[in-house]
């Protein structure tokens, strides 16, 4: 219990750090926030409007005052209002996050499923099978989602129009983006998993299990896989980061709604409250995932004791 409390405290520290870093990064990056609020570089706000916005948003205050206000507000769960959309950030994110969660979850499931299947089926098998699997994983893990996405679009939407190329309504629109987002992650994961599985299959206890008369498949599924899962769980941070990064590109390409696309638009338009909101949300999920990983690792491998 005490350990959990310490971990939670550390999590809050990470969030505070993320908030501070983002604040600093946005403050020192190029572009005047007043112009962002008033429509961008080509807009023609009147001098009165400029002065009014500067005061309303407190940009005329010293930096530390702005920072203090900002931390105070987010501590109360107030993420402010989007410069561009003119609605509360929480509302803006709330409307977009469902679509991203759907995509991320389905892509994670597909990636993990594919990686497990490939690793279990090919580890220490016929060298040719192994070589083909390993080569395709290498290709997949080094293919960016947008290249895969374009290929998928060309084949399944344009050449043979079986799946819709755009949108985020209905399960059909989820298929192509899920595949585009999942494949590079699956490629990476299955490389790690096979390596791990092959190491484990060398272990004496596997020979013991075989000696007890268990079938090859049963050994792999019941004994070896359990051990191989440990790095998978540890890699969930990587999976999460890939999903988030990939979502930006995938959502653009397949014209899906979602926070990835929203983040990109916000960053380009220097919509600081939205960028901060999404960054903090990502940090929050990241902290949560890592906490969960520690707990899960303890369950899967009793030798790992949470310190």
């Amino acid at each position, binding site marked *: 219990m005490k350990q959990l409390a310490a971990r939670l405290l550390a999590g809050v520290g990470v969030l505070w750090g993320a908030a501070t870093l983002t604040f600093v990064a946005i403050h020192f990056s190029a572009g*005047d926030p007043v112009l962002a609020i008033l*429509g961008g570089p080509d807009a023609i706000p009147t001098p009165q409007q400029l002065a009014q916005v500067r005061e309303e948003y407190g940009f005329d205050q010293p930096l530390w005052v702005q920072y203090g206000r900002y931390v105070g507000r987010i501590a109360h769960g107030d993420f402010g209002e989007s410069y561009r959309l*003119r*609605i509360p950030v929480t509302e803006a994110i709330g409307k977009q996050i469902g679509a991203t969660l759907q995509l991320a979850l389905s892509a994670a499931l597909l990636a993990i499923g594919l990686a497990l299947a490939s690793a279990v089926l090919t580890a220490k098998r016929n060298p040719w099978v192994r070589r083909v699997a390993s080569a395709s994983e290498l290709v997949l893990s080094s293919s960016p989602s*947008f290249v895969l996405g374009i290929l998928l679009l060309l084949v399944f939407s344009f050449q043979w129009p079986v799946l819709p190329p755009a949108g985020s309504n209905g399960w059909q629109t989820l298929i192509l983006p899920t595949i585009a987002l999942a494949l590079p992650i699956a490629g990476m994961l299955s490389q790690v998993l096979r390596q791990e599985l092959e190491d484990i299959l060398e272990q004496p206890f596997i020979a013991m299990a075989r000696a007890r008369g268990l079938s090859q498949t049963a050994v792999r599924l019941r004994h070896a896989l359990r051990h191989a899962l440990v790095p998978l769980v540890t890699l969930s941070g990587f999976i999460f980061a890939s999903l988030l990064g990939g979502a930006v590109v995938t959502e653009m390409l397949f*014209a899906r709604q979602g926070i990835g696309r929203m983040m990109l638009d916000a960053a*380009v338009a220097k919509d600081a409250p939205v960028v901060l909101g999404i960054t903090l949300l990502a940090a929050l999920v990241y902290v949560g995932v890592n906490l969960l990983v520690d707990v899960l690792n303890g369950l899967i491998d009793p030798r790992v004791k949470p310190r």
Partner: protein
Amino acid sequence: MPINHWSRFGLLLGLLLVSACSPDAPPPSSVQRVDGHLDAQGLLSYDPGDYHETRQGTPGGTLRMSAALDTGTFDVHSSYHGNVQWLARIVYDCLLYQDENGKISPWLAKSWDVSEDGKTYTFHLRDDVTFSDGAKFNAEALRINLEHMRDPATKSPLAAAYIAPYIDGRIIDEYTFEAHLREPYSPFLYVLAQSWLSMVSPKQIREAPKSIAEHPIGSGPFVLQSYTREQGATFIKRADYHWAPPVTRHIGPAYLDRIELSIVPEAMTRYSTLQSKRSDFTLDAPAQNTAAMRASQNLVVRNRIRMASPYRSVTFNTLRFPFDDVRVRKAIAQAIDRDGLAWIAGFGELLAKSDYLAVNTPFYDPAYRDVLKYDVDAANRQLDEAGWTLRDAQGYRVKDGRRLSAQLLGFESPSFPSNVAVAVQADVKKVGMQLTIQMMPLAQLTDRRTAGNYDAIGGGYWHTNTPDGLYILYHSDSRASPTKSGNNLSNLSDPRLDQLLGAARRSHDPVELQALYSAAQQRLTEVVPAVPDFESQVLIAYRTAVKGLIFDAVHNTPFFTSVWLDQEAP
């Protein structure tokens, strides 16, 4: 209206996809690709049927259409997004409209009078117009709308500036409104016809102004049914609508029952859904696919020119070396091959340009269209005369031990793609000038721009429905300062030009206006604050089943009230 932020991502993908089939030889001219007829004098005339209904349509059906970008808000007073031009027309109406010759014509205002001193405008309003929440359109509604545009809380990036001279208004009777201006400002009537200055329900402005962004209430031919940001919107016909602008000759409600708009940033997808009949209409037809679309029997491509300022390849900072010398500016303008630029940037769809007003702008004068045309010999002569006679080892011109060299800043956009930047660099090198290019993110460019820290900036255009766009880009009042934003990036301060553009703001006499604006266009070719390279154009495409398309005479964008679907078409 400024840079249209087409998705850079989409552009990148587009480039990736088309790089394999990049054009190698420019065609003789892109004139035939532009809608309308361009005569020998350089004047463009559109088919009158482009602006008014020629036959009655068949009601019914759903139009499925795509656009590259979402405006992010329906509160058009708080927006400067380019898509507002056609989007606002679906749910809103304006006080005024324009006819095909650019003359102001009635819409929600039946008529208007301007006082002798040009400072009092009296509008006589229609008395039969309602908003979709039941609120009446009347003088009070007009007053509330003007207040909302300039209310600091609206944070208007465009509408507020367009009505800046407006002081206050007086309600004479329910349907008569008198607007008082600080000074004579003849563009007032023109800007009131623009989509960014549409009329919103006064009830909504008073009771829930924040809700306009997502649940707008207008008096337009359609009502917004649902809207998901970055995804799309659905509009349904308003059955009791009967106040389309008289110029359009449309009577009664819109023909279409529904419009389904999808936001599709990926150019390839916009094209392929059209081709596979999964969509009927795209407002952002990808230039790289227009050849295929024009060849298709089931698709129609339209290529329209935005009024006011064309795309610019270079805007010179006239305060800095070497562009503080007008001879250098003129030489660079003559050294740039616009036909070449138009070809590499627009796949034959763009119309090259070397003067400062779009061909379809009211009071455009084609007399000066060739003054700055591509002429390498003339450019070399200019530079010799300016004293840049010596050359260094690399072949660049030198004067007083200093190389003729400058830096061009840019931001990847449709008006200034990187390949145009590189072509400009190569062109000016031929006359002995070194131009280094720095492409940067928009925010960084904005900072350099605000600080005045640049030799030259690439790209940009300004769309408005009056030649007063020249005031916004080249009058000394439009220079930026730490407390004031402005679009005169050249920092030009030419008393003669200022006098002409200022006098035009005070005049309502068409003959006088023509004389003033002609002189201003001539003056611009003498002071050369920038290099126009091609017209700012809008490409749309639709299936042949889409009938009755007319264009908004204010923005030259599609006007959906009169569009109908031929249900029997293939």
